[in-house]
């Protein structure tokens, strides 16, 4: 039965017409990576998408294969940190957080303190680091909020920090101020409008 499932999974990858956009040699190598990841219980779709992204950006075949392999390895690392129950979106967000510099231990701790999906929390963690907040400060902030904050609260928190940084606040100080103020919770609750639509001042 397991063999049958594996064969079926391989068939899906091989027959995925989207991969026809790759040259034959690159396609064969990508399919091998995808199959290997699938057998390891990792999601295949992000790997296929990464390969397709490479074709649209006219990347050389070897570069596409390298990118797909690297993503497969990072998905594996994210699953190690987040556990086998992690969903595909959580794993992708975990990869972003790890690549941003978050320690794997932070991902494991997040898993233990937050019952709902970790996708947004991990994304916010990655975004904060990308905004210039030190990995330690970002991790501390997200860990402090994760047990009780809703996804919408986390989004608003990230926005508030980005806003303060854009206004010249030091990234880590902005993060600390926002965590301690908690003002983002109320503002999000009172205005659940479109998440990223520009508005008037």
């Amino acid at each position: 039965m397991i063999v049958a499932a594996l064969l079926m999974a391989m068939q899906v990858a091989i027959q995925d017409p989207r991969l026809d956009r790759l040259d034959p040699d690159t396609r064969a190598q990508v399919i091998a990576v995808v199959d290997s990841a699938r057998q390891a219980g990792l999601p295949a779709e992000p790997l296929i998408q990464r390969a397709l992204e490479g074709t649209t950006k006219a990347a050389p075949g070897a570069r596409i294969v390298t990118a797909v392999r690297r993503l497969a390895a990072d998905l594996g690392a994210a699953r190690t940190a987040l556990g086998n129950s992690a969903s595909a979106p959580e794993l992708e967000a975990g990869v972003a957080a790890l690549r941003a510099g978050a320690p794997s231990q932070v991902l494991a701790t997040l898993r233990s303190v937050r019952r709902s999906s970790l996708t947004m929390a991990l994304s916010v963690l990655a975004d904060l680091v990308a905004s210039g907040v030190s990995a330690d400060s970002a991790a501390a902030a997200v860990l402090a909020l994760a047990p009780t904050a809703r996804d919408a609260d986390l989004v608003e928190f990230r926005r508030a920090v980005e806003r303060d940084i854009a206004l010249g606040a030091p990234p880590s100080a902005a993060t600390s101020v926002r965590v301690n103020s908690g003002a983002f919770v109320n503002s999000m609750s009172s205005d659940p409008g479109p998440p990223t639509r520009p508005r008037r001042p």
Partner: protein
Amino acid sequence: MRTLALIVAACGADAGANALVAQVAANIEAGVSEVRYDGFLASAAASVSPTIRWEHSRGRGFVSARGTYLRFESGRHSLDGSINGSWFAPLAPRLRAELGVSAGGSQYANIASFSHSEAEARLHLMSAERGAWAGASAGRSYFSGLPRNVVVLATGFWLLRRDKTMFVSLDRSSIGDTAFSDLRASARWRGSRVVLEGIVGARVWSRGGGRGVYGEGSAALTLGPDVALVLSAGRYPTDVVSGSIAGRYVTAAVRVGSIPIRRPASRVLPVNEPVYTGSDGAVSATETRLAIQIRADDVLLTIYAAGAASIEITGDFTDWQPVPLNRGDGETWAGVFRMTAGLHRLNVRRDGGPWIVPTGTMRRPDDYDGEVGVFVLP
């Protein structure tokens, strides 16, 4: 433009202007503006700005205070105020020392406030029609009570020609971890009934302070003995010390009072709405901004791209196939897509150019020597 005022005060060469004002004078400016801060839609606003100024009778120093109340069409408002002063001491026939202090604060809605205080020292070398200066400022800027050290090194030179003043300056500012340099050139012309001022500048070698070019201009038309119509417009960079965010504006105001030297209008903090990575003060004539609207069964992606003839989008939700967006009203382009919850990656292309990352997404390396925009769909 404050530098122009300092030059005038330092050399005492604008006697025609100063002779017309009392030692203590005040004015109030009331006007309407169209403002567009980076990362925000344009908004109308109304403002009231009182100013009071004291000048030493022989031009040895001055103290000036200014406040601004500004109300946006959304009903939100901002309040800011500042005070600064300088004292000039002759050291030699062509050499003057200047010591100055400045302080201020600003607040918008319920956002954390900014405040600052600085001390400044300058050395002016001058003749009747030209001069140069070098100086340094040191102080602190506070964001929600958290201090950052401020250090500014500046140098420049100026020329006076009866009714004209011109200067060029180069500043290097360091505020906490943020650092940047501004190269500015400014000119001021005073006619019988009109004063024209303009400034162009470039922010370079920036770490966290934005970069790009900017420029502002104003015209003050005398309507009566103490009444002037002031028209001004331009684009300015982020002021990290006082916490104002980059943007552009057009203002028409009436000034009632007796001070002929005008400072640029204060800008407020439009900080009750999102500001995205990539809009930290950078000046871009071809900004491409993404807005995401989650609907019942799909997601509406709207690109704001002024001046574009065509916009394409590609991402994991199109299997990375380029998809042209439909032109909406004015500068908007839109498309409807089905997406799952979670992380999504995309790029956009305007007029068949390179794939770029729109503001409104988080910018990430893309594994292919480029960048990709990332956003999360809850």
